[in-house]
């Protein structure tokens, strides 16, 4: 599909399990599209150059910087944002652990960090602290000093391993 710079283009995507569609210019950043056109304001924009990680979302299950993607690149993709993590009443295990370990203060970077953690724990179900810190190096948090975040991720990984053991 070819579009010109000032033409808008209908973007269809699956956002948090729901099919959504809106118009976007070819240059519209994915983060802006998710926030302002689809209302997913849980996606936070901190640097717009791919360093701070606050805007991280899952695209087809993989953590991506939505500030470094265009809305058109989200076309016909499955996108999950922080709004997808909790059930109506219950926070996910990761969210609960963040709360227990005081892993957030202002909460601005948290949305992106949670999404990276979701992806990471899928791929590395039993990480050590070095791996967790390495994964977090793609995120900037100015409030917490990262301690609570590291503790929360390690605890959730351990819990999930235990739960898996029980099920088996």
């Amino acid at each position, binding site marked *: 599909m070819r579009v010109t710079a*000032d033409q808008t283009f209908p973007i269809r995507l699956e956002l948090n399990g729901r099919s959504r569609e809106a118009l976007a*210019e070819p*240059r*519209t950043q994915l983060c802006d599209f998710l*926030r302002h056109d689809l209302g*997913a*304001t*849980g*996606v*936070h*924009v*901190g*640097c*717009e*150059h791919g*360093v*701070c990680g*606050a805007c991280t979302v899952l695209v087809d299950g993989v953590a991506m910087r939505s500030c470094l993607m265009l809305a058109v690149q989200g076309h016909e993709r499955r996108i999950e*944002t*922080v*709004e997808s*993590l*909790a059930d109506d009443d219950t*926070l996910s295990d990761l*969210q609960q652990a*963040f*709360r*227990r370990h*005081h892993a*957030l*203060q*202002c*909460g*601005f*970077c*948290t*949305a992106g960090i*949670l999404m990276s953690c979701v992806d990471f724990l899928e791929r590395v179900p039993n990480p050590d602290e*070095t791996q*967790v*810190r*390495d994964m*977090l*190096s*793609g*995120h*900037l*948090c*100015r*409030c*917490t*000093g*990262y*301690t*609570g*975040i*590291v503790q929360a991720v390690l605890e959730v990984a351990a819990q999930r391993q235990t739960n898996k053991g029980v099920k088996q």
Partner: protein
Amino acid sequence: MTTFQPATESPTSHIGARQTRVEDAALLRGLGCYADDAAIPPGTLHAAIIRSPHAHARITSVDFSRALLMKGVHGVLVGEDVKRWALPFPVGVRQPMEHWCVAVDKVRYVGEPVAVVIAESRYLAEDAIEGVRVEYEPLPPIIDPELATAEQAPVLHEAVGSNVVNERHFRYGEPEQAFEQAPHKVSLKVKFPRSSCTPIECYVVLAQYERATGIYDVLANFQGPYALHTVMARALNVPGNRLRLRTPKDSGGSFGIKQGVFPYVVMMGLASRKVGAPVKWVEDRLEHLQGASSATNRVTEIEAAVEADGRITALRYDQIDDCGAYLRAPEPATFYRMHGNLTGAYAIRNLQVRNRVVLTNKTPSGLNRGFGGPQVYFALERLLQHIAVQLKLDPLDVIRRNLVPADAFPYRAAAGALLDSGNYQAGIALAAADGGLDELLKRRDQARAEGRIYGIGYAAVIEPSISNMGYITTAMTPEERRKAGPKNGAVATATINVGPLGDVSVHVSSAPQGQGHQTTVAQVVAEVLGVALESIVVNVELDTQKDAWSIASGNYSSRFAGAVAGAVYKAALKIRDRLAAIAAEQLQASPEDIRFAGGKIFVVNGGAVAPFHRIAGATHWSPGLLPEGENGGLRETAFWSPPQLEAPDDKDQVNSSLCYGFVFDICGLEIDRMTGEIHIDRYVTCHDAGRLLNPALVDGQIRGGFTQGLGAALMEEFAYGEDGSFLSGTFADYLVPTAPEVIEPMILHMETPSPFTPLGAKGVGEGNNMSTPVCVANAVADALGRSDIRLPLTPSKVRTLIGIDEPPRPAGMEPDENLDAVPAGGPALRANDSVVIPASPQQVFDTLLDPQTLAAIIPGCHDLVLEGENRYRADVTVGVGMIRARFEAKVALSDLDPPHSLRLSGSGSSSMGSAQGQAKVRFVELENGHTRLEYQYQVAVSGKVAAVGGRMLQGASKVIIGQIFTRLSQRVSGQAISTGWWARLRASLGALFGKGGAQ
């Protein structure tokens, strides 16, 4: 004074509990409401700011006619509009300086706003920046604060006539005599760099000017409003009630930095007035790093009169604060926030101070977590360490010998601080014992025995909190203060409302940015009123038109726990007293016997019981049956200002804060001899912040402050080129600590309640921002035996301190002296390279002189027009990293020595900044008749390209300059050079079909 007493007989105490946070349920779901999430009125327009690429220049013209024709543009706000409608910002010292929200005649720092484009979307507004043409007449900049004090230095504000805009001398005790009598005088000169705690959320302002009422209605993630509301209202030239300022529920961090939103509140208010519609502005990261705010950089010469045992009898400070291009409120507060406690944790009675406030061509400085503390302690605690080295004493002994005695509290320090409570000796003993100092000392011995570089540093720090709003007037002389009228105190405000169903709501005037105020407030109210914590709703939004607020330092100066939570406690007591009177009548008991717990109000010792909601509801449902004097409704507001915060006296003594916590840190670190990298082995931080209201949140504050302190110590710096170019415009250039670089500090607590706050709590949020930079520096000084420690201690800096002998330059790599003639810019870089061309030197030389060739080989050249002999005007698009800009360039060939050498130079400017470069080209004939074209080049850039492209510059210029000569080679050897997209497409299609590409 009232001190904290358990408010109920309930065994479950909320105050002091490690309560998880009320805020997290929304924040973890992505349901926070930050400023950019707020709904905007229909028809809201969006702003983009045009900023100066020059550090110092006169604005000769601003032409925005082309922008007005661009898509979606509604208007452009310029200096003339601002002059017509507004006033300059008031400043804290009496000097003829004008700071407008948009530059009116001169620009004085890179990034200073020059015009505001207002369009239908942020994208369109940013597009239209290209349509505004600003002509500048550059002036010589001054960047170094010491050089700025010189008489011949370029002056920023001509009307002042000097860059030193405020100078004060202070004398306490008999410092001259003490220095005369002292057996030792030890001095040190230190420099503290610029940095910022950089919140992850940038500034956001949504402004609407209501033409009918003349009210500016503004929503901003400002950390206020408080004292700065008056500054904004005066700049907008309206009474306070015509600036309605609102702050949203959530803020993505501030650390003081969001105080710097205030000029934009005024700017966007005026922008809205210009276009007659609401205007929204969301700052981007480059704008934030280069133009938002910064900690004040300081140069200090400090000297102590010292006895043989290390006891200090007098201190002398000579301090220069570099506040940037304008003295922006609350500056020069960086000096005076710490003034009363300049003698730190030490009982030093004789003190002499010289404070000079200097302006330079940098971003105006402002609040940054630790405000004033890191600068003072970097001098004072470095000096203590240096005294120990000079006198061959143990640094810890020098600290111990000078401490304020434990039985001396409250202690009036030399410059006027009334140190409220503490036991510094006990704090140090606790840190040494539980922190394992003996073991650390052994590790140092062992490491050194093995030839490794290991050091231990200490820092003893007084952490002031709850600022005296009058301290800033210490910048004025006593006579000036008398004329202006006294300023003192700091009013904290809280309101509690109990609804008809017994539901409790609280509002605090505090504007938090992540500290968990909703949680702690709920803890205090739950404890006093005996209701479930979860049932309480705490509102932390602020609306200056509807909410109770007053002049105070807001949430800055760590005043929440001591002052704001104290005001909440006072308001809760008022509600409780009223309810006790009502319950006493209904339950037929005396009010003193009424207790509150478990959602019930009851008579002590198993007496009558009533549900909380029934007694509270009576104030709404049956006011006629209430006791006499009870008017019904149940809402109480408490204003609290401590009497200890007096105005500075005629001897310039000032109790600059209400509370003074104590922090003692120990740092053990090892330095990699090869790389200069610092590995923190252990970091112990012991805090006495009075009574802890929620230890989990306190530890969170300490960890965060420690990490920022570590960043300031090791990596963070706002770097400026000699020409004033800002060089730290991305998070890849301005490095902040990430998870792998951070270690977990060992946190220790002791609690000496403050006698001056309602709950005995003191502030705790800033201590490590003050202590950690100098503690790490002291450890490095100890490790390397050096006294000249400069922050941040980057590996390259440490490597230089270790000392290395630079090997001689390899043969043939000597620099071309002529290349140094390129004017100093931002990051100048030099390199050389060569390419072999299958043609004779004469052929190559002639080809290069051909204009058509030149147009074809300059990458991104759209147009090349001959201006004179071998001089051209060109239109060139160049990309560096994420930046791509169209430059109006000048290209010239000079120093022609056919067919041996020539010089190719170019310079250009664009909306992204300016660039200049030159290459010395040599044509060396090879044996086969071909030519080796050797080129040595130098490039300098400024403006936005320098701020965000610095890291990429080396690679980008290599590629771009390499392209010039590769294309030349292709052209000479007869291969076609294609420049248009069609040619590129043809070439790639050719390559695809195996026909060989043209490129």
